[in-house]
């Protein structure tokens, strides 16, 4: 025992160091992964994101699970890349879910607006009866059969702002639907018109009025983009009519809007 006395302080120091090392060695996941896990929980708990997360949120789940399981085996660059990609996948999931949430709310608001326009019309409210009076369509509102077909066409316009009223089936394209792409349309504008072109294939008797509101130059050019796109998608040019509205903006819309009105 006495022989240990000279080295006792060294042994004690080693023991303390070993205990300290055990205490400081991370047993749980690294802090960055904990942060990602908390964020993932937040995404799932958010009522706008969790139910609308779809494949993107599932991808973020899977990426995080894989990263968590393998974090300690990765070198620093691989680990950093895993954190980076997982964090970005979470942001993709969040944005995609919020987009779906907004689109669903938009559909509900579209129905609400249709109901209000109908209420105005039945109450004889001047605003309702003069909606786009320049179309001169007030005296020939769609008959019930035609209206049913227009509603069927409207169901094909998923994700677009559209309504069925006394003018017919009305698809609204705002300035943000027109862009720098090859077709002069953004992806959303192209999707809307591609869906409309498909719906028009099943409605050979329907005519299409493309009405430009606001500045004659730029908006008229947008209306021509719509006409050209529908023509390329197989809609007979005879069925397409481009015109300038007399008013600056459609009811409930904005200056610069292009309305695509389908009637039989």
């Amino acid at each position, binding site marked *: 025992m006495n022989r240990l006395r000279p080295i006792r302080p060294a042994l004690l120091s080693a023991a303390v160091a070993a205990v300290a090392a055990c205490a400081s060695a991370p047993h749980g996941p690294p802090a960055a992964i904990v942060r990602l896990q908390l964020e993932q929980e937040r995404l799932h708990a958010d009522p706008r994101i969790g139910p609308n997360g779809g*494949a*993107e949120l599932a*991808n973020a789940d*899977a*990426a995080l699970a*894989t*990263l968590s*399981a*393998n*974090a300690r*085996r*990765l*070198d620093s*660059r*691989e680990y950093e*890349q*895993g954190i*980076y*990609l*997982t964090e*970005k*996948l979470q*942001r*993709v999931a969040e*944005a*995609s879910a*919020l*987009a*779906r949430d*907004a*689109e669903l*709310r*938009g559909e509900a*608001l*579209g129905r*609400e*607006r249709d109901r*209000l*326009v109908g*209420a*105005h019309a039945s*109450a004889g*409210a001047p*605003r*309702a009866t003069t909606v786009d009076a320049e179309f001169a369509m007030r005296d020939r509102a769609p008959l019930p059969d035609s209206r049913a077909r227009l509603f069927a066409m409207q169901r094909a316009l998923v994700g677009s*702002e559209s309504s069925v009223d006394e003018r017919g089936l009305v698809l609204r394209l*705002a300035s*943000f639907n027109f*862009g*720098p*792409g090859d077709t002069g349309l*953004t*992806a*959303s504008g192209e999707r809307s018109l591609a869906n409309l072109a498909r719906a028009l294939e099943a409605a050979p008797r329907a005519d299409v009025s493309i009405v430009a509101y606001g500045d004659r130059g730029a908006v008229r050019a947008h209306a021509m983009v719509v006409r050209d796109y529908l023509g390329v998608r197989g809609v007979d040019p005879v069925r397409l009519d481009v015109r300038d509205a007399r008013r600056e903006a459609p*009811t*409930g*819309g*904005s200056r610069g809007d292009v309305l695509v009105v389908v009637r039989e």
Partner: protein
Amino acid sequence: MKTMHALAAVALAAAGGVAHAVDCDVAQLELAQATTAVQAAERDDAARYAPGDLAEARTTLDLASRAADAREWNDAAYFAERAKVNGDLASARSRQQRAEAATAQLQRSIDALHADGGVP
């Protein structure tokens, strides 16, 4: 669907395979997919609605292209994975912004109808 590849990249990285497994073909494939994602974001009007994400996507795509030119396939794949997920993010944010703008417009339209006709 776009994010599936990024997820696969995470899984690959997590399996410890990136540093040793990337060859020319894999890196070129990553680069092509990243280019497609960035182009899709541009078509989705991300320059207007998600300029920061699109800029990051372009920057990382440029780094990936330079690495590929230098035949640094690990770096090319590394930056291409980043460019692709940033392109996907720019597209998703652009879609979100457009959808929220359209919804706000509809809400204003409804408010106007309420104010105009006193409809409940």
